[in-house]
């Protein structure tokens, strides 16, 4: 609750400070301060200390899983800002507005994680989406950025329509938007409405999390958007939408598990296949990361598919592992001029520490043991194995994970084993220190995932 309020307020503060402060650099200090406030507020929330103790007439619900996820999201945001502050300011002339939009998105993230009513979910997704359209097009003089924004907006608006249609059908079937009233007895004549509604919602949410076959916008948008914002929308926003997705399907829709299970399984398999296979053929690391984010979405779909306790733990770990690693990689990428794989040649010679952290991040994305990515994949796959059905899907997923090694390791090979001069990367001590924290967190979560998961069951 604290998060939703404070992020909205801080967004407004950011916007107004833009009016009164002309110094661009000040914006990042205010923004950082805001994120620290959000983080503290959220940890307080986790411990039951609230600014306003209200669930707004049952519109919101506060379970530990969602609150803990929000802490992970805000923590990732802090790391993201610390690593990429400089580049956000460099995007254009309106840094205060960019930061304001990011805070508004965080407000939406809060709603998407804590909703207890389909309308709140809808509003949350829209609050996330509209600022994202703007951020995508924020590099105003770049045609690619404009194209990406328009594409994203048109497709996003279309999927929003489908989402609303789904909600309407569900309302028609159950007469309610409240999650706890969305369950119908299997002999109820209105059940087809509910099922149709679930299908539409499934399609719309698959679009939002870029699951295949609704992923076509992703590579273009991620590639066209300013790199620093790609990093943000590919990580924090994406996992937040997944948490909303998971809460819906492991909650009220779980009663209809048999109806949607196969569809989700097929979406999962397609997402894994398309994401991984296409990523193999990319020449640009940025585009590779776009496809890799589709591939990773395939693994997160496993959590939705399974919907059990393992799935929630897995989703949480996945959120942390995926955000940390991807933010880490993008923070290096944004400093490079050459986005091709060859651009990474001999980086290890020039910047051994940065190369090391990048390696840890890539190993984590590939799911190698001792990194957070391993346990993230482990938990979501375990969740699927636990359901006892569709074992072929799990075997298929691990084969796809092996393919993903191919394109992640290409970067490692370029950095360590190829000859070259290595691009210049500007680094500051703070930047390196934060990178160190990223690597350390990935390894700690990779050895002791319980250090995060224990918080789920505390109290």
């Amino acid at each position, binding site marked *: 609750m604290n998060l939703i309020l404070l992020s909205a307020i801080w967004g407004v503060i950011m916007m107004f400070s833009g009016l009164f402060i002309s110094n661009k650099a000040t914006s990042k200090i205010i923004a950082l301060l805001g994120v620290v406030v959000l983080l503290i507020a959220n940890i307080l929330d986790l411990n039951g200390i609230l600014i306003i103790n209200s669930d707004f007439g049952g519109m919101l619900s506060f379970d530990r899983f969602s609150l803990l996820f929000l802490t992970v999201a805000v923590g990732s945001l802090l790391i993201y800002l610390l690593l990429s502050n400089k580049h956000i300011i460099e995007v254009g002339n309106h840094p205060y507005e960019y930061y304001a939009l990011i805070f508004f998105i965080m407000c939406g993230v809060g709603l998407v994680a804590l909703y207890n009513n389909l309308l709140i979910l809808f509003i949350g997704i829209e609050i996330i989406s509209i600022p994202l359209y703007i951020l995508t097009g924020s590099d105003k003089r770049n045609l690619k950025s404009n194209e990406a924004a328009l594409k994203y907006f048109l497709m996003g608006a279309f999927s929003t329509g489908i989402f609303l249609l789904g909600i309407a059908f569900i309302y028609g079937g159950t007469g309610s938007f409240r999650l706890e009233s969305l369950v119908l007895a299997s002999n109820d004549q209105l059940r087809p409405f509910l099922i149709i509604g679930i299908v539409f919602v499934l399609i719309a949410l698959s679009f939002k999390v870029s699951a295949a076959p609704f992923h076509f916008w992703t590579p273009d948008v991620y590639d066209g958007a300013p790199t620093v914002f790609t990093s943000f929308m590919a990580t924090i926003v994406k996992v937040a939408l997944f948490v909303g997705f998971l809460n819906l399907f492991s909650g009220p829709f779980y009663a209809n598990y048999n109806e949607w299970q196969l569809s989700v399984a097929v979406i999962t398999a397609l997402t894994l296949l398309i994401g991984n296979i296409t990523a193999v053929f990319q020449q640009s690391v940025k585009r590779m990361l776009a496809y890799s984010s589709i591939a990773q979405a395939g693994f997160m779909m496993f959590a939705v598919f399974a919907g059990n306790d393992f799935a929630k733990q897995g989703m949480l770990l996945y959120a942390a592992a995926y955000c940390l690693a991807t933010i880490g990689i993008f923070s290096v990428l944004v400093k490079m001029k050459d986005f091709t794989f060859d651009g990474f040649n001999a980086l290890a010679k020039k910047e051994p520490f940065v190369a090391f952290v990048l390696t840890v991040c890539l190993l984590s994305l590939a799911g190698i043991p001792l990194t957070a990515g391993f346990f993230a994949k482990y938990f979501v796959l375990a969740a699927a194995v636990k359901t*006892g059905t569709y074992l072929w899907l799990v075997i298929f997923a691990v084969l796809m994970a*092996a393919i993903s090694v191919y394109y992640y390791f290409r970067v490692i*090979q370029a950095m360590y*084993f190829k000859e070259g001069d290595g691009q210049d990367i500007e680094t500051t001590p703070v930047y390196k220190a934060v990178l160190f924290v990223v690597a350390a967190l990935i390894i700690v979560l990779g050895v002791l995932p319980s250090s995060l998961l224990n918080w789920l069951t505390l109290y």
Partner: protein
Amino acid sequence: MIALLLILIPLIGGIGLFFVKGEKAAKSLSMFIAAANLGLMITALVTKADTAMHFDAAWLPQLGSSFALKMDGMSLILCLLTTLAYPVIFISTSNNQYKSPHSFYGLMLLAQAGILGVFVAADGLLFYFFWELALIPVYFLCSKWGGERRIAVTFKFFIYTFVGSLLMLVGLLYLYFQTPDLSFALQALYDVKLTTAQQSWLFWLFFIAFAVKMPVFPFHTWQPDAYEESPTAVTMVLSALMVKMGLFAVVRWLIPLFPAAAIQFDNVVIGLSVIGMVYASILAMQQDDIKRLVAYSSIAHIGLMSAALFVNNQSGLEGAIIQFFSHGVNVLGMWIVVDLIEQQFGTRKMSELGGIAQKAPVLTIMLVIVALANVALPLTNAFIGEFLMFNGLFQFNMWYAAAGGLSIILSAVYTLKMIQKVFYGESNATTAGAIDIGWMPKIGLSVIVVAIFIMGVFPKPVFALMNDTVTTVLGIYK
């Protein structure tokens, strides 16, 4: 406790080495760490205290996984091999120069930590962890310090093994959900009651992982390339130690977990192994590069071991386990000689070498002993193992033994041909200035030769050591 220290010493030492400056310091420190670990291992063998062999600490209680280590007889044999091999490798290759030596030796030690972890882990998830942990340093070692085609070749190796281990992970997960109280503990996994149908597909998920590592035909295609392109010190680790991970895992995990499937598919596995033996031997005869020759001969030897593991009798199992050690020692000796030749003459082609024996008598004597052990001459260590394995194979099916015997004859052919071409005959421009080996390689090779003879004449302690493993595995079969 010693089980834990065995892993920790190379792990911490390996990480520490990354921060060491200077080649000399890196070399002596890594040597010291390897020697310390060997000392520790010998202490474990001498005391045989129960507390030394076991270790158990909470790791992931929610998952039912603990940091449980257990050394049984077979683990002890393989840990001894690993801890013995490292000082020998470091001594024999101490004249080699590496770019950024501190990373090289650091990664070598990290690989040792992973390999030792595989041999002592008594928890499914922990085993998987070490299985992968051993692979990552080797990947970097081969890709960074290998030959010309190193990147592509090592990558193939990595992907092969990674696919295998992921399939094993799926199998492990399935098994885990069958345990009554969700546990990864070795004993809990042993106790799971599976139907024959479940066993038969889980068996393959695990077997592919192990078969790639060994490697068994037709999963072997990564191996000759990887052996050829890796720096020889790493090839030694790969072929003397890492292939043992696959064989070890069959005895420790595969057969006890799925005994019914192991009997059901014994003909398939033994058939593949025997095909691999003959096929690899024929290929070995065609090679001009001695490194590739040893690589193929290694596939042939591994084939015999993997066949012997599935014959389901005492003779085969005992022979295989003793051969784990013997093969490790012998192949290490072969690689040391190969490395010495390559370092001195800059070529590994038999056609370009010849007549070294007159100039380098010590090297020649050492090689002849190692090579004769490699073809399993009586009085050498390999004789006992191969005799028992053939005995076991014969009891299982005479024709397999006959086909396998063919590969032994072929191994004598190509090994002796190699000695003849490289060491005898006329010397040429490349080998005219040959000099004998220095003190360091002499020490390394002497250790090997001594081990060959001791094991060949007095193998009884090793049999006594493996007794508990053999009893357990054969008990589960029944």
